[in-house]
């Protein structure tokens, strides 16, 4: 597997950051890729307008774990609006690049984040 992924991706796969659930989250994103079977769940905590905590639970390949780990790292401390502007490319670049066949994992991570924010924006109303 070391041949497929760079060392940074491997490092986030072996020691993923922010694994788990957040109790009483402000937003939860749940996405899955029906083709490869990866499933991601992303939890966020928002204080004021800033994302103070993010955790994830992912069932999937090494790249799915690494991109989930990286997106939770990227999003912490950002405003909700800044977080909406984290693209899949930004996640992949922060990992030092992904093999082309695994780019869809970064798309999934972006979608999980957007879905969690959408949930947060919905919950705020009532």
């Amino acid at each position, binding site marked *: 597997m070391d041949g497929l992924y760079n060392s940074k991706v491997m490092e986030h796969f072996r020691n993923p950051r922010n694994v788990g659930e957040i109790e009483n989250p402000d937003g939860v994103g749940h996405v899955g890729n029906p083709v490869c079977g990866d499933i991601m769940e992303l939890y966020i905590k928002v204080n004021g307008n800033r994302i103070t905590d993010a955790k994830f639970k992912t069932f999937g390949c090494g790249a799915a774990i690494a991109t989930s780990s990286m997106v939770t790292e990227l999003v912490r401390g950002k405003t909700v*609006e800044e977080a*909406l*502007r984290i*693209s899949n*490319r930004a996640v992949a670049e922060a990992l030092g690049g992904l093999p082309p066949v695994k780019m869809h994992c970064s798309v999934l991570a*972006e*979608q999980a984040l*957007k879905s969690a*924010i*959408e949930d947060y*924006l*919905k919950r*705020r*109303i009532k």
Partner: protein
Amino acid sequence: MKSEEIISKIMELKNRRKAILLVHNYQRPEVQDISDHIGDSLELSRKAAKADAEVIVFCGVHFMAETAAILNPDKIVLLPEEKAGCPMADMITRDSLLELKKKHPEAVVVAYVNTSAEVKAEADVCCTSANAVEIVASLPGEKEIIFVPDKYLGSYVGNKLGRKMILWPGYCPTHVAILAENVKKAKSEHPEAKVIVHPECTTDVIALADEVKSTNGMCKFALETETKEIIVGTETGILHRMRRENPTKKIYPVSENVVCHNMKSITLEKILWSLEDLKPRIVVPEETRVRAIKAIEAMIK
């Protein structure tokens, strides 16, 4: 039930209920295809006011159905999915606007139509993305202006007119996710194409566009332009209408991911249920309605 069955039931009930189906440009293709009118929120509400119908089924989001209810107090207004909201409209409440007005008691309040009826009731004049520049330009030059809730539409208008306004920090989560890098990539893939974007996009995205237009403005542009290729920077639902109206032109989204899930939450099934039960019904309290309609009428004038 097959969708053809659902559609024929919708059509039958629509006649029986004397209903009209108003559909926003961002709705699902299959919903657009059964519309009586398709367009942007204000145009649709105006159509509704003229229509000889007893029931309005508004396939859009909550504030749009509210606007239809403000303009059509004698008609039943239905929103097939009650939870279809506008996150931007929800970023400002009546109370928070009142607080801001207290700090600037002399200011004129311009409210984008993407606001609740309660917020419109506290505004002096409404605007749409099609007429925002015109509306602000019509206000006396010495007047301070509060513009709510979209800071990007507000900055676009302010930059265009060279006028400073007090902006509310709201934004559309769908449009802010369009990045300058998406536009640059689309341009490099289709170098001949013209780029049109919505004014809810961020300032850096607007700077890369050839034209900045409302959804109806985009559709009109697509029909009239000599250009054969267009890159569209807004919710991707609009592509269905544009491609149907311009079969010989190539129309590309700036990114496939520009999707408003609130808009997409309305389905054929929900439209049918809504017509069967005459709910969820959107009602604006009369006291709010008469105040909100003043801001809308001030815009139409």
